[in-house]
C-alpha cells in the first residue's frame, strides 16, 4: 500500500518536473552546475574503478582457461564483452547510485529541512522543476561517462594481460575485435540512458519528500541508494530480455 503511494507520488513529481518551467537563463546556470557536480565530478572514480576492474576481469578469464584448445584471444574477447555489456553500463550506474544518488538526495533533502524549498515555493517558483529538471538534463551526458568507462575498462584488461603475461598483445587485440556487434554498444547506451533517468529522479524524490532534520537526510540518502540500485537491477533484467534475447 505504502509502496503504491510512493510510486504514485513519484510519477506526480515527474509530471511537475516538466510544467511551469524556470526562466531559461537561470535554468542554464543550474544545468551547468549539475553537469559539474554530477558528471565531471564522477569521472575520476569511474575511470579509476573501470581500469582496475577491467584488469581483474581479464586476469580471471586468463586464469580460467587452462585448456590449450581454447584460443588465447578469448581473454580480450571476454574482457570486451563483459565490460561493454554489463560492467560499464550496469555496475558503474550502481556505483553512481551511491555517489551521484546520495549527493542528489542529501542536497535536495537539506534544502527541504532548512525550508529552502518552502522559500522557493513562496516565491511562486515550481521547486520540482527548479531542482530536478537540471539533474535530468545533465544526466543525459551519462553515456559519455560510460563510454570512458568502457574504454578504460578494456585498456585495464589489456594492461593486466600484458603485465601478467597471460596472452600476447596481438592476441588480446584480435580478441577485442572478434565478432564485434555494434548493437551491443547501442544496447549499453540505451540502458545507460534509462539508468541515468532513474539516477536523477529516484534520489530527487527521496530528498524532495523527506521529513525531519539532519539525521533523516542521511537516512533518506541510504533509502534512496537501495531503491535506485533495486530499480536499476530490475530494469537491467527487462531491458536485456527485450533487446538481446
Amino acid at each position: 500500500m505504502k509502496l503504491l503511494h510512493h510510486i504514485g507520488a513519484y510519477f506526480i513529481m515527474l509530471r511537475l518536473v516538466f510544467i511551469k518551467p524556470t526562466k531559461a537563463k537561470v535554468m542554464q546556470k543550474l544545468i551547468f552546475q549539475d553537469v559539474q557536480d554530477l558528471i565531471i565530478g564522477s569521472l575520476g572514480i569511474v575511470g579509476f574503478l573501470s581500469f582496475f576492474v577491467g584488469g581483474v576481469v581479464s586476469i580471471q578469464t586468463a586464469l580460467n582457461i587452462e585448456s590449450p584448445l581454447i584460443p588465447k584471444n578469448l581473454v580480450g574477447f571476454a574482457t570486451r564483452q563483459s565490460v561493454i555489456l554489463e560492467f560499464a553500463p550496469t555496475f558503474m550506474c550502481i556505483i553512481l547510485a551511491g555517489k551521484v544518488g546520495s549527493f542528489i538526495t542529501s542536497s535536495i533533502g537539506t534544502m527541504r529541512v532548512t525550508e529552502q524549498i518552502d522559500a522557493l515555493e513562496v516565491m511562486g517558483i515550481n521547486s520540482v522543476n527548479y531542482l530536478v529538471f537540471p539533474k535530468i538534463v545533465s544526466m543525459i551526458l551519462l553515456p559519455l561517462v560510460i563510454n570512458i568507462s568502457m574504454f578504460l575498462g578494456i585498456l585495464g584488461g589489456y594492461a593486466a594481460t600484458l603485465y601478467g603475461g597471460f596472452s600476447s598483445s596481438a592476441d588480446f587485440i584480435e580478441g577485442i575485435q572478434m565478432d564485434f556487434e555494434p548493437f551491443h554498444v547501442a544496447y549499453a547506451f540505451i540502458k545507460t540512458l534509462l539508468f541515468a533517468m532513474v539516477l536523477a529522479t529516484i534520489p530527487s524524490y527521496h530528498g524532495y519528500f523527506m521529513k525531519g532534520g539532519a539525521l533523516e537526510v542521511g537516512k533518506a540518502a541510504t533509502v534512496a541508494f537501495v531503491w535506485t540500485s533495486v530499480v536499476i537491477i530490475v530494469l537491467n533484467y527487462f531491458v536485456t530480455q527485450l533487446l538481446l534475447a
Partner: protein
Amino acid sequence: MIELRDIRKSFDGVEVLKGISMTFEPGKTNLIIGQSGSGKTVLLKCLLGLHQPDGGTMLFNNRAFGEMDDDEQRTLRREMGMVFQGSALFDSMTVLENVMFPMQMLTKQSETAIRKAAEEVIERVNLVESNHKLPAELSGGMQKRVAIARAIVMKPKYLFCDEPNSGLDPKTAIVIDNLVREITQENNITTVINSHDMNSVMEIGDTILFLKNGVKAWKGSKELIFKTDNKAICDFVYSSNLMKKVKEMYQ
C-alpha cells in the same frame, strides 16, 4: 489587511488549528505567540499558501484567497515576503545573489536594476560589505538580515516572519525585531510574526494573537497583556522566574 475566519487544519486526523479568526492590520507588527507546537508555523504556512486549510476563509485586502483564480493567486504570492525560522537562505548563493534571486525569477527588470534594488535593501537592513559572502560565513543575526532583505526586495504588501529572533542573543534579537517593525511602518506592510519570546512581545506587540493547542486563547496588545487575568495567557507570560519577579516588584 488580512482577515482570518474560522481557519481549520488537520494532519493525519489530528486537528492542529481548530477554527482561528483574527484580523491583522497594515503598518503594524501583528504577533502570533504561543508555546512550541501550538500551531503558529502551520497558521503562517496556511497564510502563505504552503498549506491548504481544511476550512475557513482567508481574506487579503477583503478578497478571499479561495475565490481567486490561479493568476490572481500568483499575483498575491508576489505581494508576500517570508522570513523563515532558520533563514532558509540558498546556501550555494552569495548574500547579494540571495537577495537578487526573487527579482531575477519573477520580474523582467534588467540585471543592473535588480542589483541596484538588492543593494538598496541590503543597505536598509544594515548589512554592508558582506555582499559577496556565502550564508555559511555569516553569523545568525546577519543571516536573519539577509533573509529580511530577500523578503522585502519585491516590496511586499504582506510580510511573514517565523520566529525571526530564535537562536539569537537577546540584544541582536531586539535589533532584528525593531528592524522588522521599522520596515513595516515605513512601507505600511501587513506584517505577521510568530514568536514565543516575551521580549518580542514587549518590543513590537502591536496586536497579539495567543494560540494554545490550536485555539485562539486570547487576543490583545502589549499594553493589554499585563492587565488581563486570562489564565492561559498569564501562565504563558509568567512562565519564567524573571517575569514572576517583575510582577512581584510591580505590585
